[in-house]
């Protein structure tokens, strides 16, 4: 398992409660969030090993507490990592430069700690790594003061069936979470997994409320590659950590360890900003270096290879499974802004089983669109009209693609993936993508338009077909009227001759 880095305590603590949703008055929010965080962690753990995920989340009402159990078949954890990952509240295996679902990887743990505080119960972790001979079961607590794990006991048993993965069980106070109220949100989120991870099988059980997501695809995509930070986009705390922990002896070799930086570029950069190439990284003026790195405009663009797209086949399979549309088209675009690689995928789906949106007064045609938003393979739930994706969709002249969403039910799916997660979100609620970078909005729009161009030709063919069948319907409607009256007018009791003659012309 890759290195686990440590965030500053104060930095993380501020984010924690907000992220979990415990600061809102609505107990549905933390209930939804705990399911989402557990699921995302498990999906990442499976994909890291290219394993088709089997994930099961069980919620059980005990008297005044709720028991939460999540099991996956991911790569599992070594003892060392269990202690690190579940011991320190603020450690994360995801605080690295690569695309991942979790923003900071600390989401799940907030709930464990919150549960420990409110129920005074330890939590359980059982795990085995791939090819592990034993399954280890830990009963643990977190010492919040010391930020350390306290292992109450460890039991091991023989791993006869060669299982791997993680099982976590912890408790939350019933007063703080309401899974009944959160059910619709959870259901929507899980169903969207058909699109974001059609290779996953997911079960969710809460009493008689059961949701099962079947596996549509057997192929699991390659895990997102971890890449070195790019000098243009590295954030202050990451740079500081790197400078303090690097084994490189001088700043020149340190720079070449960053992404897309060759020796020539590094030398040019250092001479431009009058930094001695042999300065030890630990002694560098951190602020000056950071500013210079942001300002310097000759860095080569970072690679977009590290991004993990849903991909045309998976995306379309998921959309078809959920809505069985008459038409679906896909387009994707990759781009780099301020040193951060982005990829956008867009799918347009129309007709079929897509439900018609309810007509409300004063609704513009574009507002009939049903927009689904995804970022780094996670569905963004809830409607945010000011989200960058919605804005881009509303900014398009749909009529020029012959599409009137108020007439034909139309769905738009947009997935943005990037290593620069913090650029996208205003807060950790992962609700909407903010308008930090107008270029992203433009990229989304261009990508949507590419998908729409395919939709336009389908639409115009469909309209021709519809006109032809309307025409045929009208002629069919009046044919009997003409036949019967004409036959009667001509004193013909048998209408068959006239009928054949009229139909020959009409139909």
């Amino acid at each position, binding site marked *: 398992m890759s290195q686990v880095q440590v965030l500053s305590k104060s930095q993380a603590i501020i984010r924690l409660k907000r992220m979990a949703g415990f600061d809102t008055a609505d107990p549905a929010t933390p209930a939804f969030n705990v399911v989402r965080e557990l699921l995302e962690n498990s999906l990442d753990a499976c994909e890291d090993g290219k394993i088709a995920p089997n994930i099961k989340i069980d919620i059980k009402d005990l008297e005044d507490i709720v028991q939460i159990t999540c099991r996956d078949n991911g790569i599992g954890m070594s003892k060392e990592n269990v202690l690190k990952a579940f011991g320190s509240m603020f450690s994360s295996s995801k605080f690295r430069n690569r695309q991942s679902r979790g923003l900071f990887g600390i989401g799940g743990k907030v709930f464990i700690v919150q549960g420990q505080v409110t129920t005074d119960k330890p939590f359980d972790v059982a795990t085995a790594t791939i090819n592990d001979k034993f399954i280890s079961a830990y009963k643990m607590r977190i010492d919040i003061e010391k930020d350390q794990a306290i292992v109450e006991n460890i039991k091991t048993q023989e791993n006869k069936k060669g299982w791997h993965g993680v099982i976590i069980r912890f408790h939350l106070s019933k007063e703080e979470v309401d899974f009944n109220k959160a059910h619709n949100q959870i259901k929507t989120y899980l169903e969207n997994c058909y699109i974001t991870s059609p290779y996953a099988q997911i079960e969710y059980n809460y009493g008689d409320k059961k949701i099962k997501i079947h596996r549509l695809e057997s192929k699991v995509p390659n895990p997102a590659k971890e890449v070195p930070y790019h000098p243009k986009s590295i954030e202050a705390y990451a740079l500081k950590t790197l400078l303090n922990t690097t084994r490189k002896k001088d700043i020149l070799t340190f720079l070449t360890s960053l992404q897309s930086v060759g020796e020539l570029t590094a030398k040019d950069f250092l001479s431009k900003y009058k930094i001695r190439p042999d300065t030890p990284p630990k002694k560098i003026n951190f602020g000056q270096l950071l500013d210079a790195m942001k300002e310097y405009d000759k860095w080569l663009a970072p690679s977009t290879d590290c991004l993990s797209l849903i991909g045309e086949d998976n995306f379309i399979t998921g959309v078809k499974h959920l809505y069985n549309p008459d038409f679906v088209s896909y387009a994707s675009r990759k781009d780099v802004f301020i040193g951060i690689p982005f990829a956008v995928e867009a799918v347009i789906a129309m007709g079929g089983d897509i439900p018609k949106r309810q007509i409300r007064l004063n609704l513009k045609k574009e507002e009939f669109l049903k927009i689904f938003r995804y970022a780094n393979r996670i569905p963004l739930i809830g409607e945010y009209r000011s989200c960058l994706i919605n804005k881009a969709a509303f900014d398009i002249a749909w009529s020029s693609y012959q599409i009137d969403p108020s007439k034909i039910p139309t769905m738009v799916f947009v997935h943005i993936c990037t290593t620069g997660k913090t650029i996208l979100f205003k807060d950790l609620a992962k609700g909407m993508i903010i308008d930090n970078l107008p270029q992203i909005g433009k990229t989304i729009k261009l990508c949507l338009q590419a998908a729409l161009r395919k939709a336009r030709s389908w639409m115009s063919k469909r309209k021709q077909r519809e006109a032809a069948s309307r025409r045929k319907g009208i002629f069919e409607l*009046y044919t009997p*009227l003409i036949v019967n*009256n004409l036959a009667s*007018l001509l004193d013909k009791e048998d209408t068959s001759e*006239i009928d054949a*003659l009229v139909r020959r*012309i009409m139909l």
Partner: protein
Amino acid sequence: MKFEDNRTKILQEKIGNVVLKKLLKGEEPTLEILKRDMSNVSFDKNKRMLLPGNEKLSRRMKSLGGVRTFAQTVMIANSIREAILQKYHPSLRDVFYNNKFTIPGSKRLSLDSQEESNSIVQDLEVLTGLSREELGIVADSKGLLAGDIQLKSENDIIDGSKMGSLAIPIPSIVDNLDLLKTKAEFVLVVEKGAIFEGLNASKWWKKHNCILITGKGQPDRGTRRMVQRLHNEFELPVYVLVDGDSYGFAIYGVYKFGSVSLAYQNEKLACPDAKFLGVSVSDIYNYKIPKNAIIKAKPSDLKRAQDMLKTEWFNTPFWKKEFELLQEKKEKVELESFSRFGYNYLADKYIPEKINNLKNK
């Protein structure tokens, strides 16, 4: 009825066989229908009436815009033929209800309104060359006639001089009557029913030896046909008395020149020799009608007068002068305003004086 034998054959021939012939050739059938709007109507200077041109509309069976009316035309032709065969005399409303139903397999009605079927009946009139009356369709009749005249309806003789205080109703199908004989010397057409009633109550027709007729406003076909027949068959001069406003002048125009929408029937309905008796605009001032018996003309009256002056048939020195006076004074009067001079003024003074004027011209 005079046309009984032929009518069903004409309907079969002009609609049924026309369509069938095309169908047998494997071609799309069309019905060529005389255009009935202003664009295809002009003033015939010889006949001095409004007559239709030759422009026709093709009603196609296989066109989105045409198929519905095509089907309706065949349907109503068949329905009218059946009525004739069964010796019914349906009204226009009967024809509408007889053919109104929901088309099987849809929510669409075969006829949405009576206007639709009325218009199809007019199409059939021009397609067959038979009038609505000849097709046996009756309409509400509202015209009245009074005077010393003998008519024959079926086997009964009706003597207009022996009606007491009643008037003879003019039926919608005037051609079924025979006009036997009359002692009258002229026909007076009165726009308004109430004025007619007043004149008839005092046996005005007897005193002045005339036939009185009213169409009660805009005249129906029967009234107009009756006026034309009285003029043609007894060579009686026809005088028309209407309100002194654009609406009254237009009614006079309909009696005399015919109407645009029924241009194809005008040869049977118009009476180009009819003369305008009054009330003219200049009469308002010649007879010195008091100010408070005069009505201010509305903008719509003035607009209508302007439009009428632009037509060829009203473009005469007399009407030019009249309409110019109307535009200048912007005033109009009703026939009843003469009552300011006494109840008998219109009957005993104005009408006889105006008739004399016309006779002496």
